[in-house]
């Protein structure tokens, strides 16, 4: 085994292989930086070139791309508060406050160093695990996977901030939104309102962008400064590297966690960052800074998400069953190269297997190295007046959302989720809780249904299930005991007791959503009904509890960061900006993406940013040109506009 591993290492280090690996890394970084694209877009750039390439180089290129996506996506998470991909959602919680504090460079370099170490640990684990991981993967049946989704949901206890009730209600609403679409057991349509778009459910990108990106953009616009509140870059990248080196065990623990979770097909990387985040919160003595810019809150998810890719390779290579979304694409690439992944490949072509593993390690080093060098210059963007960045971010958000299912409905859903996001932020509802509920809803339902079908109710007594249940209980206990200080939604306003009416109204809207879910569920066949009915009732009770508590004036539930302005009869401008963005969507629908951006960019820059016309024109050209290039290079599509379709 060792001689094969060594000879594979030699091959990986050879010039040609290295060149293609670096090429793959570059593509991976670019698509990683652009939120919402991820491995799938990267793969569609690389796949056309695979035909005829030699296998080792092609594998290096694919792995290079896949490995660094959770590295590149950190840029947007830290600097803009936009979760670049599902693997970097938790990084936002502490990374973005650090950037606001003027420590973007430190946060970024800490993130990249952890990514590097996590990725290498993942590769090391993979190289040993690949020959013996079979029993581990097989021991996780649908029952254990269901329990893991419950474990994931228990993270809400840590991430709810001051009000657990609000956290549960938010997670419940997330579960409700996540179960829109076709029921896995029977194929019945649920809560689709008769809209074709909703048959496949709301795409994750749209929900994440709407909940996080739009509210953050609007808040920064409202504040009217640069992202960073002060001018220094905060010690630069050296400090971030030292931060990581000071917490070696944290990195090792989170990386191992990432590996194991990544190895379980079906759960994938969607929750690994949250699990790592709540792990660091639960095991740290001083928790006062989490959610406000604690560097450990960046290190934990970033070491886990790169290691996760190594873990995800285990089921992909051993069983031919992808461990995550980007692994599904990697699997397709392998088949295109004429390799059938599966136990036959691992056993008979061990050299190929080790080429993949070493490429993974190397790609992590190369990718993180490049990012560390980029960290400082890119961090300067946090010093630019935000009003100049805002149109660009809005464009990227809309571009990414539209790629989710290439429907105008994506953009409409983005604006709707943006509306939900700004009010959740304003009234102190934990958005991460909603996102976790949303991400886990399909898995929870599907695995529960399968577990019951396969084992009846005996699944409850499986040892794996009991172990995970115990871990969950401990985690909830720790979360409740220590999690209260972590807030993803900022501080409330002193006048918040006086706007209880508005807070009640928003809670009432969520209550109605839950009620609608229960009402819809009641009309379905048993198998399609049971899950939405359960979570609908959960969301209903929790949101009712929030309503009652706000009415009775309990401090923990009362939150409104716009209260003073509202009391004074003024508006903070959040609705105004959201209306502008909604107008932009309407314009895109009417005249198409590019013309709409050509109108929106200069108008916004001149009216809101007081930019000179020439500057505005140059920035417009740059931005539109950039998106045009990306669209062309990835053979993507953008909305063409009603007018264009009628004229041509």
């Amino acid at each position: 085994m060792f001689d094969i591993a060594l000879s594979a290492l030699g091959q990986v280090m050879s010039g040609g292989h290295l060149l293609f690996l670096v090429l793959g890394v570059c593509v991976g970084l670019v698509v990683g930086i652009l939120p919402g694209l991820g491995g799938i877009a990267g793969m569609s750039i690389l796949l056309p070139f695979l035909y005829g390439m030699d296998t080792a180089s092609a594998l290096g290129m694919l792995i290079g791309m896949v490995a660094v996506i959770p590295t590149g996506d950190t840029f947007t998470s830290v600097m803009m508060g936009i979760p670049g991909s599902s693997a970097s959602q938790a990084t936002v919680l502490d990374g973005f406050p650090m950037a606001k504090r003027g420590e973007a460079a430190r946060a970024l370099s800490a993130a990249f160093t952890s990514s590097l170490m996590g990725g290498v640990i993942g590769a090391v684990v993979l190289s040993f695990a690949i020959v013996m991981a079979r029993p581990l993967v097989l021991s996780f049946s649908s029952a254990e996977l269901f329990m893991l989704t419950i474990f994931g949901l228990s993270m809400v206890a840590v991430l709810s901030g001051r009000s657990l009730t609000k956290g549960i209600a938010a997670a419940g609403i997330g579960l409700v939104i996540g179960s829109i679409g076709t029921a896995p057991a029977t194929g019945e349509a649920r809560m689709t309102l008769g809209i074709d778009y909703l048959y496949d459910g709301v795409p994750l990108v749209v929900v994440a962008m709407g909940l996080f990106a739009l509210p953050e953009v609007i808040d920064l616009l409202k504040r009217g400064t640069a992202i960073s509140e002060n001018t220094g870059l905060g010690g630069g990248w050296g400090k971030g590297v030292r931060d990581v080196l000071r917490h070696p065990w944290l990195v090792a623990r989170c990386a191992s966690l990432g590996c194991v979770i990544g190895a379980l097909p079906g759960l994938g990387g969607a929750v690994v960052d949250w699990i790592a985040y709540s792990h660091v919160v639960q095991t740290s003595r001083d928790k006062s800074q989490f959610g406000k810019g604690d560097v450990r809150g960046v290190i934990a998810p970033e070491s886990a998400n790169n290691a996760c890719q190594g873990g995800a390779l285990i089921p992909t290579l051993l069983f031919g069953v992808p461990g995550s979304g980007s692994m599904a694409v990697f699997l397709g690439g392998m088949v295109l190269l004429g390799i059938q992944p599966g136990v036959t490949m691992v056993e008979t072509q061990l050299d190929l297997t080790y080429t993949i593993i070493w490429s993974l390690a190397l790609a992590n080093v190369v990718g993180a190295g490049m990012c560390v060098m980029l960290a400082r210059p890119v961090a300067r963007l946090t010093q630019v007046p935000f009003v100049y960045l805002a149109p660009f971010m809005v464009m990227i958000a809309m571009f990414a959302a539209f790629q989710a299912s290439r429907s105008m409905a994506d953009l409409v859903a983005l604006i709707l989720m943006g509306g939900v996001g700004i009010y959740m932020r304003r009234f102190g509802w934990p958005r991460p809780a909603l996102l976790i509920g949303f991400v886990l809803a399909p898995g929870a339902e599907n695995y529960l249904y399968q577990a019951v079908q396969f084992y009846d109710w005996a699944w409850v007594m499986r040892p794996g299930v009991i172990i995970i249940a115990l871990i969950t209980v401990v985690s909830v206990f720790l979360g409740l005991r220590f999690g209260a200080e972590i807030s993803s939604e900022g501080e409330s306003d002193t006048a918040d007791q006086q706007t209880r009416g508005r807070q009640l109204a928003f809670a009432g809207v969520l209550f109605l959503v839950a009620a609608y879910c229960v009402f819809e569920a009641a009309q379905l066949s048993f198998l399609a009904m049971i899950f939405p009915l359960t979570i609908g009732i959960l969301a209903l009770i929790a949101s009712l509890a929030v309503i009652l508590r706000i009415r009775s004036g309990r401090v923990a539930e009362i939150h409104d960061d716009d209260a003073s302005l509202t009391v004074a009869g003024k508006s903070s401008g959040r609705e105004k900006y959201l209306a502008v963005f909604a107008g932009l969507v309407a314009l895109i629908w009417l005249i198409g993406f590019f013309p709409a951006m050509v109108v929106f960019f200069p108008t916004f820059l001149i009216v809101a940013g007081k930019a000179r016309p020439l500057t505005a024109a140059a920035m417009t050209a740059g931005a539109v040109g950039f998106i045009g290039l990306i669209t062309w290079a990835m053979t993507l599509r953008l909305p063409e506009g009603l007018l264009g379709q009628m004229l041509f």
Partner: protein
Amino acid sequence: MKLLNKRGLRSMLLGAVALAMPMSLQAQDFAGETIEWTIPFGVGGGTDVWARFFAPQLSEALPGNPTVVVLNVPGGGSITGANQFAMRASDDGLSILGTSASTQYPAILGDPRVRYDYADWTAVLASPTGGVVYIDPKYGVTGPQDIEKLRAEEIRFASQGATALEMPVLLAFKMMGLNIKAVFGMESRGAGRLAFERGEAGIDFQTSSAFMSSVRPLVDGGKAVPLFSLGVVDAEGNVARDPSFPDMPTFVEFYEQATGAKPEGEAFEAWKALMLAGFSLQKMLVLPKDAPAEVIAAYGEAAKTIVEAPDFRERAGEELGDYDQLVGAEADAALKEALTVDPAIREFLTNWLAEDYGVKM
């Protein structure tokens, strides 16, 4: 070390040149044109990989060497992308579509979301596949002689859905009177195989390439017993042995030996219709029927050139298997046959799905 072999280098160069070339010089021979190949599935899935295998070869084989780009439009289990193609495709040969069993089945069943009609399309290339049903050795079943043992047990089968690729397999189980409990919602056939390997499911089905790479080792290790292949159904309704598994009985043979009679009646007709549309023509390259005759002929010729190339088998590897690719008029004739389903058969299928699985169309 050699970076790229000669062919790879050439196709990369060709790609680069083609991308750099300006639009249309001579429309009739595709020179300088870009052909948009809509794939109603995500990147990396079976149909996508199939298209990406053929795309560069199509580019080389079509007159004028056009650029062929794959456009993925996933959603609705391929209905979204196929609907979009039906609505927007140009009939100049520059818009083509790749379909799969999950595009064909909803059309046969009359799914209300389907807004495409295979009668509007002509097929120029069709890739068949086959599949094998295998069982956990704990049931002690080794062949058709053990049918009573097989019928006596309630056996679980992990499936993607009642109207997915497994539909003819479920129907085959029903025809033999087996007590199979289908567990739906698997993300892929691979996930179903994992359930089998964990011992959750007692019986399973895999398409040919997956069977060879992932189930063969289980068979050799005594952890799985193959029962029958689905066989190859041709446009006349004949069922022949699967060329990938010449030593394995087909479902029809298995049925005959187990029950002592040939399968017949509506159920068997429906099974053959599903087999033809979902397996014999599992993946198809179609273009609008209204395209000029010379364009359709050019595609037929190109498909023929590709599959008759001496090294095609070797390059196609296990994924396409030993099956004869259908090209040109032959593919189109099979398509016509497959998608012209007798209303009585359709009714039988929808009734069966509604009764056994509560699926409403």
